[in-house]
């Protein structure tokens, strides 16, 4: 399965007469854009804004972030099972509007989360301050059932990304990167002198605002399964996870998973990257036991010698991590864990909600607890008052002048469990 990603570098985004890309400038016909993403009868109106890196702009509360892509050659379409049909994706060619992201903004529940500053100290913590963000903030029918509300917002973001991605269909990309995912027997034998390494990709799957979709299937109901990393790049994984701003894996991060990128980079040099297993993170302990058993079994059958595992979200997925760790190590597969930590504001408490002796190799992507002060921004897209009831915010977190005080966990993507973040921790 070979996928060419054609990156079209976007340097600016403006509203204009037509939605098009010319010489790195993306113009958006606002009315057409809004019409394309507002087909649900519960959408009363949509505010669309552009937030550029370096601007004095705050987006809050953010839900998902999505990169605009379009399938230009090969089977299927972006977001299979959700916006495209169920055809298997991950081969052919996909064009990417590089440097642009759709950000969905809006309140689903009274408590909300996800602050994204485009400049200032907050911008340093988030990967999304480097993209030109097209923010969509809908007003929906009053009193909608919450699951329905979340779904409308999620679908709106995906539709927005597909609408924008479409303009890249006939544009010659600035760069083409090819990713190959070979049949198992070839992959295993490709570099016989290098360790066979795989990636265990845990997906949040627990209920309202805590879900992930695999080809449109609720991840709660999957057994661990193989997926081609190129399928992930074509949108086979969609985030419905709106909680824990800092460590949720947005759809954008699924599309650009840095562990997958790094494994490709090391493929043939230090490792033989043989595959990816996705597994869920359910609430019931029996599900965690079943999933970790199954992942370890799959990995062993494929002859993995080493693996990297990442988690999504906070708390109980630590148990998924540790169960996977025991079982993979139990089969002789060396495991490295990538995760964020919550050891308190001073970093002195226990970092995880579960531990095991086998967890002896861990990459930390940062502590979510320390407080940061975010100075006021000239423009706020969304609802600034959310900061008082944000995850990582607290009563009184919003000052009269617009200054916000939050724990790092309130900042979008700041401690993302797949390591797209800008933080880490070192032992001294």
């Amino acid at each position: 399965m070979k996928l060419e990603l054609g990156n079209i570098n976007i340097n600016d985004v403006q509203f204009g007469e037509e939605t098009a890309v010319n010489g790195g400038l993306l113009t958006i016909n606002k009315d057409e854009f809004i019409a394309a993403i507002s087909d649900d009868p519960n959408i009363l109106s949509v505010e669309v804004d552009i937030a550029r890196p370096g601007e004095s702009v705050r987006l809050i509360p953010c839900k998902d972030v999505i990169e605009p892509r379009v399938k230009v050659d090969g089977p299927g379409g972006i977001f299979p099972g959700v916006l495209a049909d169920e055809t298997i994706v991950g081969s052919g060619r996909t064009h990417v509007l590089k440097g642009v992201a759709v950000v969905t903004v809006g309140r689903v529940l009274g408590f909300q989360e996800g602050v994204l500053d485009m400049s200032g100290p907050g911008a340093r913590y988030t990967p999304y301050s480097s993209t030109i963000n097209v923010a969509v903030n809908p007003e929906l029918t009053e009193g909608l059932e919450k699951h329905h509300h979340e779904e409308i917002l999620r679908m709106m973001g995906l539709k927005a990304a597909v609408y924008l991605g479409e303009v890249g269909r006939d544009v010659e990309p600035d760069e083409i990167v090819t990713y190959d995912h070979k049949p198992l027997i070839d992959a295993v034998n490709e570099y016989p002198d290098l360790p066979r390494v795989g990636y265990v990709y845990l997906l949040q799957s627990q209920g309202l605002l805590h879900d992930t979709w695999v080809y449109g299937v609720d991840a709660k109901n999957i057994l661990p399964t193989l997926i081609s990393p190129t399928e992930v790049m074509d949108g086979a994984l969609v985030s419905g996870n709106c909680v824990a701003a800092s460590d949720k894996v947005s759809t954008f991060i699924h599309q650009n998973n840095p562990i997958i990128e790094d494994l490709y980079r090391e493929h043939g040099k230090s490792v033989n990257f043989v595959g990816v297993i996705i597994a869920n993170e359910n609430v019931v302990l029996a599900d965690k036991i079943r999933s970790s058993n199954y992942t370890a079994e799959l990995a062993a059958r494929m002859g993995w010698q080493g693996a990297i595992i990442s988690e999504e979200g906070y708390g109980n997925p630590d148990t998924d991590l540790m169960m996977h760790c025991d079982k993979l190590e139990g089969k002789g597969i060396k495991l490295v864990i990538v995760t964020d930590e919550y050891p308190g504001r001073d970093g002195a408490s226990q970092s995880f909600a579960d531990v095991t002796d086998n967890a002896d190799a861990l990459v930390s992507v940062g502590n979510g607890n320390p407080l940061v002060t975010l100075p006021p921004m000239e423009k706020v897209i969304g609802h600034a008052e959310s900061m008082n009831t944000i995850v990582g915010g607290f009563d009184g977190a919003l000052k009269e002048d617009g200054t916000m005080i939050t724990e790092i966990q309130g900042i979008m993507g700041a401690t993302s469990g797949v390591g797209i973040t800008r933080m880490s921790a070192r032992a001294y």
Partner: protein
Amino acid sequence: MDKYVIVTNNPMRKARIEETQLEAVRLKFVNTLDDVIQTTRDMIHSGHRLISHPLAGSVKPVENPYRSIILSEETGPLDYESLRIFEHAVSQVNVFKQSYESDLTRYSQTLLTDYQLIDVSLIDSALSRLKLKR
């Protein structure tokens, strides 16, 4: 059929269980998050097994003042794995006591209802994975 106990301080959870009348589920309603922890700990020491993870969901403990935990109704010898998972989870609850206001009078009713709903949804997702009969 396996039977379960839900320890909760969530009034919406209580109402939903009473409405649905699941034969396999007994409710143990307590007042506070600390009571949920204490009651669950006592039950584990009495031989009940943890069925759902005590830290369901990514909304942080204490930030969400409501919590529901599913245990087995059946008891046996102390299940060390349940105890181990539970005690590690509780250490994280203590971390978040420094982050959040635990005075519920400072929360609006809408906010409290939303936190209740999140807890209900997480435990519903757990119940949907268990074999329950009406």
